[in-house]
């Protein structure tokens, strides 16, 4: 399953400073944001974990959008990722 991932507002510095990525996820299993965050932690995160995650969730202050829609309207961690979804992480914690 192909998906797109992008970072903004400074969140990219936690991921090797790469702003946009195309990813292929194993289609044989169901993906939720919850399992995807674990995947990101294990495969993509290059800075300290606590700057991105708090428990199994993103750290408060990092906004998540799925296809440009606030994840708070889509079930947050339980949202089931669909092919060609575009997932964005935008930090509100950097600079002012």
């Amino acid at each position: 399953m192909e998906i797109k991932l992008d970072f903004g507002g400074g969140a990219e510095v936690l991921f090797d400073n790469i702003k946009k990525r195309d990813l292929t996820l194993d289609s044989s299993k169901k993906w939720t944001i919850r399992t995807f965050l674990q995947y990101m932690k294990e495969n993509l995160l290059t800075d300290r974990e606590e700057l991105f995650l708090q428990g199994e969730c993103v750290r408060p202050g990092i906004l998540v959008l799925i296809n440009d829609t606030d994840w708070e309207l889509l079930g947050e961690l339980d949202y089931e990722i669909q092919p060609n979804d575009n997932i964005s992480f935008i930090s509100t914690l950097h600079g002012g």
Partner: protein
Amino acid sequence: MVLCKANCGNKAILKRPKTGDALCKECFFTAFECEIHETITKGQLFKSGDKVAIGASGGKDSTVLAYVLKLLNERYKYNLKIVLLSIDEGITGYRDDSLETVKKNRDDYGMELKILSYEELYGWTMDKVVSVIGKTNNCTFCGVFRRQALDRGAKMLEVDCVATGHNADDIAETVLMNILRGDMVRLRRCTKIKTHSNEDAIPRVKPLKYTYEKEIVMYAHFKKLVYFSTECIFAPNAYRGHARMFLKDLEKIRPSVIMDIIHSGEQIQFKENIKKPVLDICQTCGFVSSCQPCKACVLLEGLNRGLPKLGIGKKSKGERMIAQQNLERIHRVKNDF
């Protein structure tokens, strides 16, 4: 799919932290802009014909402020002349990049831009300050110098007021910090939407005082506004960082906490016997200050005397340090003969 709460028939794209409402993009823009307009009119932040400087850092808040203020000025005929005022602290690799963003704002919005550097104002860049003071107390210097630099810039540009990008999250955080530090003078001042330090000083206003950080970032995202987003490369303020994360954790459970804390700050009654600083003019530099000489002048004297810690501790300690150095100098002169 969630539909917009305003019954416009469009798909909602965000849940507002302030109200919990789900709104579509257009209704969100309208709500966001109208609320800032209301803050401006209710607080009587400007009057027709005013020249307003936006304290522009290139970050998300001042970028959104410049965009929205230009838009509201045209939509509601405020009749303001808006200019951008940026401070160059002289931090290589940080301010260089953010100033590029401010220059882009200048071109995009067609506003005059004035950049004032610590170097030209004080003879010291922050890079140089850090090289003598280290990375522990440098935020004190930067904060004191910046505050005065904005006053000086405002005077040079002959503006009627300075608008800063402080948002609701920033103000709630500052209320909390001032309570934790027992700083009643700053607590009283920090929730004010318009501050006049005295008759002569140029007022500061905060049009984004009731605007949540999440909405500012979402607004910039959906409007595709370009801003600069890297922390200052020198030591971050750890105490403020903790207060910030504490608030973000609370906000997760109860989004209204930001407004609630601001409200608490506004409603606290102060005893009249709390010492209020008398604001005066610094006899050394001529800018507004509550002490003689002002904090900026003390810090600067310390740097120039090679006693960079001078303004950081208690005043009495600083005076001892100066006396000691003067004494040593006299001895040195005597010994030279």
